[in-house]
């Protein structure tokens, strides 16, 4: 009887001893706080990006160059510089609406509602994805999933669940490096849990006291052999953007 009792006691000690580091780790990682720190690193009130959008549809690769000015979550303006076919195209996002101006037609078109869900210029991004610029920590509730080592770096995987049922992607999963508060990759899921999109963040560099990725690769996992790479050639944070950049009057030739 005593032997059995001692065995049980030893098993309990052994269990507590083995699981306690994991419990300690989970307690140590405040998922929501970590997500907020990631947002703080990536986020700024205003931003300017001059970059390239490389669209690979599996048969052909197209490169679009653009300049974008962003202010908060509700205002952004993009100007496409090449190729010749897209040159002069302008996109203006004001609150939930997106206007597109094309020099060929010399007209501005309002992209709203369900049109926002269409693929943007044949890329793996929808207009909605492109417009999306909200803070993850504000839109999602984060919970700790596990730790994963990739190339000797321990990444914290967080599961994000949308606070609002109107949010396009109800669940996401992010791989975060807790040391420098950077994201390695992000997965976006359908409501049913089907994996839809994968975003890889690459080429991190220190810019204005932030560690910011120079490259983002979007993959629509429902499509075969397609990916869209967004390369940021020039990035500026917290700059003054003239107010007329976010006015409909800018959508002219």
């Amino acid at each position, binding site marked *: 009887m005593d032997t059995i009792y001692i065995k049980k006691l030893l098993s309990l000690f052994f269990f507590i001893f083995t699981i306690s580091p994991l419990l300690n780790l989970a307690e140590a990682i405040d998922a929501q706080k970590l997500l907020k720190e990631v947002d703080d690193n990536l986020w700024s009130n205003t931003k300017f990006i001059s970059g390239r959008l490389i669209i690979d549809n599996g048969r052909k690769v197209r490169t679009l160059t653009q300049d974008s000015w962003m202010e908060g979550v509700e205002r952004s303006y993009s100007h496409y510089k090449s190729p010749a076919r897209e040159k002069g195209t302008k996109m203006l996002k004001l609150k939930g609406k997106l206007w597109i101006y094309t020099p060929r037609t010399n007209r501005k078109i309002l992209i709203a509602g369900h*049109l926002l869900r269409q693929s943007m210029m044949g890329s793996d991004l929808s207009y909605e994805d492109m417009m999306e610029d909200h803070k993850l920590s504000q839109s999602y509730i984060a919970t700790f999933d596990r730790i994963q080592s990739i190339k000797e770096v321990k990444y914290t995987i967080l599961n994000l669940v949308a606070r609002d049922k109107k949010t396009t992607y*109800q669940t996401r999963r992010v791989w975060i490096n807790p040391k420098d508060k950077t994201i390695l990759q992000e997965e976006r899921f359908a409501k049913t849990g089907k994996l839809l999109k994968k975003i890889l963040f690459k080429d991190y560099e220190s810019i204005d006291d932030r560690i910011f990725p120079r490259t983002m690769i979007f993959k629509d996992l*429902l499509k075969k052999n397609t990916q869209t790479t967004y390369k940021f050639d020039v990035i500026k944070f917290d700059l003054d953007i003239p107010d007329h950049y976010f006015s409909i009057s800018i959508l002219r030739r």
Partner: protein
Amino acid sequence: MNWDIAKKNFFRQGLRASLNVFVTAFSIIALIFMLSLLNGFQAQATRNVVNTDVGGGHYIAPGFDILSPTEWEDHTVKIPKSLSQLDDKDKAEVLVQQGQLYPNRRLYPVQIRGISMNQSLLKLPLDNLFNFQKPIEDLIPAVIGAKMAKKTHLNKGDILTLKWRDKSGAVDAKDILIIDVGDMLNPRVDDGVVWLRLDHLRFLTDRAEEVSWVAVRNYVGPILGFEYQSVELLMADLLSLWRQDRINSKILWAILMVLVCISVFNTQILNIFKRQKEIGTLMALGMEPKRIVRIFTLEGGLAAFWALFVAILLGLPFFIWFHSVGFDVSHLSESTLPIRETIYPDYQPLEIIYSLVIVFVLIVTAAWLPVKKITKMNPTMALRGRAIK
């Protein structure tokens, strides 16, 4: 007396008269065939659209427009009691949503159409969907049309991903199982359409009891919150096409008649020219020119009469035979016309009688026009064969 002379003269013409009779008879057969085939085609196509989509009209959600896919999600409403209480054989509830299908992992925009499984108003090949009883946790059962299957290279048993949005706008996706590829007959409910069970689609999109429209057998009066669209309105494009077809058939009809009339006209001119001496003799013997005109016109009329007789003799067995075998139009499966079967001619007795009367009148007129100049003929010159130069 006139009749006897005309009859003798007509039979004396021999080959010339019989050629005239046969040309006219074949034209009449072609005319009736063309009209009946067009009738059959239009009737079958209309029936297909009514049976598979339109029913006796639609009660649609306000603002819903099938031609504005980006707004389908904005125009769905809960079905009112007055419509839900209708018998299943008198109504079909339909919910339409935008979707994206990924055959072979390529994007293919589709219309997701959910239909109540108990309805018997619309005749659609969805029996396998009705009989599918498994829960939809893993796979959603779907049916597509043959045309859609051909375009997307999909077959029965294939599994692929379908993406859609729920009522709140959240993106959702799941694998669907193609449980059947049905012959829809109507491209409107085939091309780019994925059929789901209404209860499944409502569950997937959080739209309990909602519909985009309700197809009904008969108009049941105005219903608050719904707009009624009649069969004529729903089929406006098709009916307009039919009207244009009718105009085109009339042009063909006119061309055929012109050919027949030219043939009769030509024969009559030749008759007068060759029979100048006969006309001159009749005039010299005291026959009034008007009577001679009547005799010649009667000869033309006889040609028309015999043409009708031959047309009945040859046409009747042909029409009976053709009605049994029909006209295979499977090649139209690639078109957007709502027909993909054998067309059977639709003989409309009244239309045939009208056509025959018009043909008869035209032939008699074509026979009379050239001979009326007999009234102005100089008998002396006619006797010498020089009245017409």
